[in-house]
């Protein structure tokens, strides 16, 4: 690992001051992704600013019936938090579908949002990668691209965002609270992560001198009709080939409200309002679910090794919506898909 300086931040304002003073510094919280990337020479910060002891570890109820999750709440604490398990079980399920128990104990809420892609070429510093080294080219487009994007990619980058938690958060209409030199602001979750376009080096719309302080959930939790269905190359502890967060509000068999977001398919957690509109007001049956899948995948494009993901995504969407409508969410321990 490279040499670097280490300092602790005393509070959020101090963290913002320290990061603004040194453009080559990085925040560290759980460290599960950053330290790995530093060992691989992909990230080379001159200084780590340790924010792990800041008081951002509580889950609090908001005035409008939602929850405010501190940026440093560990993923495991969030997944097993009674209010999350009861009111936002799709979020709990998505978190438990990701990583391992050890990593979930370490990884923070804010850090989960900011983790980098697992594209092998991003990690491999001897190959071109526009995300790691802008302008050098994309090795994945003509390389091994089994895990890569089928939606929203560009000629510059076909990497995917690896998070499971974020797929549930975008479906739930979460907000990201951030602080910076100019004060605080809130970013709608759907606007937090970016598509690659011509600037794949930027994963998110967080400014370099800003810090994530909290993630806020609205009151609506879809605790009855939901699922998080994750398809991967082994049964546990692997990134998604395709994952689906599906949540419905039903009136009898009619869909009053629908949320549908996909992981493993794009540079950001993929939520498509048109696909949700195709569900709203319709009967909750497989033909309707297939129509919504076709809407969501209308612009999907495969590459040499990942074209199978288009049909996989279509089937996973139909299955996930069926699970949600039935009220039988996917178990994250018994992996049989019913």
């Amino acid at each position, binding site marked *: *690992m490279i*040499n670097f300086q280490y300092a602790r931040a005393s509070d959020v304002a101090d963290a913002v001051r320290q990061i603004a003073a040194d453009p080559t510094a990085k925040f560290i919280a759980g460290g*599960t992704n950053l330290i*790995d990337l530093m060992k691989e020479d992909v990230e080379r910060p001159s200084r780590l600013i*340790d924010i792990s002891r800041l008081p951002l570890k509580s889950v609090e109820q908001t005035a409008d019936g939602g929850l405010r999750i501190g940026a440093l709440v560990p993923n495991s604490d969030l997944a097993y938090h009674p209010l999350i398990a009861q009111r936002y079980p799709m979020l709990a399920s998505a978190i438990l579908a990701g990583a391992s128990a050890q*990593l979930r104990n*370490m990884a923070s809420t804010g850090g989960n949002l900011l983790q980098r892609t697992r594209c092998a070429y991003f990690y491999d510093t001897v190959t071109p990668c526009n995300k790691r080294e802008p302008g050098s080219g994309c090795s994945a487009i003509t390389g091994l691209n089994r895990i890569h994007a089928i939606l929203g990619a560009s000629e510059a980058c076909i990497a995917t965002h690896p998070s499971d938690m974020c797929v549930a958060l975008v479906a739930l209409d979460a907000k990201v609270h951030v602080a910076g030199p100019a004060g605080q602001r809130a970013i709608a979750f759907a606007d937090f992560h970016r598509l690659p376009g011509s600037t794949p080096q930027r994963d998110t719309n967080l400014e370099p001198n800003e810090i994530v302080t909290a993630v806020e959930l609205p009151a609506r939790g879809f605790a009855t009709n939901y699922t998080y269905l994750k398809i991967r190359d082994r*049964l546990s502890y692997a990134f998604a080939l395709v994952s689906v967060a599906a949540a419905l509000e039903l009136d009898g068999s009619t869909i009053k409200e629908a949320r549908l977001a996909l992981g493993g398919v794009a540079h950001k957690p993929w939520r498509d309002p048109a696909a949700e509109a195709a569900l709203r007001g319709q009967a909750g049956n497989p033909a309707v679910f297939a129509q919504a899948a076709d809407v969501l995948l209308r612009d999907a494009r495969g590459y040499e090794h990942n074209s199978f993901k288009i049909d996989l995504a279509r089937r996973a969407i139909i299955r996930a919506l069926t699970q949600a409508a039935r009220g039988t969410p996917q178990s994250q*321990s018994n992996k049989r898909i019913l």
Partner: protein
Amino acid sequence: MAQSSSAARTGPEKFSTPAKMAVTLHVNGVERKLTVAPWTTLLDALRLHLDLTGTKKGCDHGQCGACTVLVDGRRINSCLTLAVMKDGVQVTTIEGLAQGNTLHPLQQAFIEHDAFQCGYCTPGQICSAAGLIAEGHARTADEIRELMSGNICRCGAYPNIVAAIQQAMGQS
């Protein structure tokens, strides 16, 4: 050329070496003071500075679980955290589980169920299982398998590992 290489020799170092830092860890109930560079992982601090080599370095990237230890009672990958970040914490390693000559119930169960072959992943498996039991979220074999998926055993002792953990859970 001669001029520029001369300037390089007399100029400031391109990369200054950051000062080492004092860290106190409470390891297996014993206070240990050490001085480490900021980039020293908790794993390297345990193995190289404290000679506690029971904790294994497998992949060194958080993918295998061989480095699993308990920090303030929670299982983590010690290869993916820095010793300087853990100043003041309680660390339990495989060396700290037995009570004198009495093995921890998990250690005893791993022996009784032949839950290893080469043994390299075993310290991490046992520390991870201790964390799993303390967390209290696993009841069925499926749940044990899922919540132990961060510990890879390339000898394939998984069925016996699950049986050993079930036995230890029954005792705790």
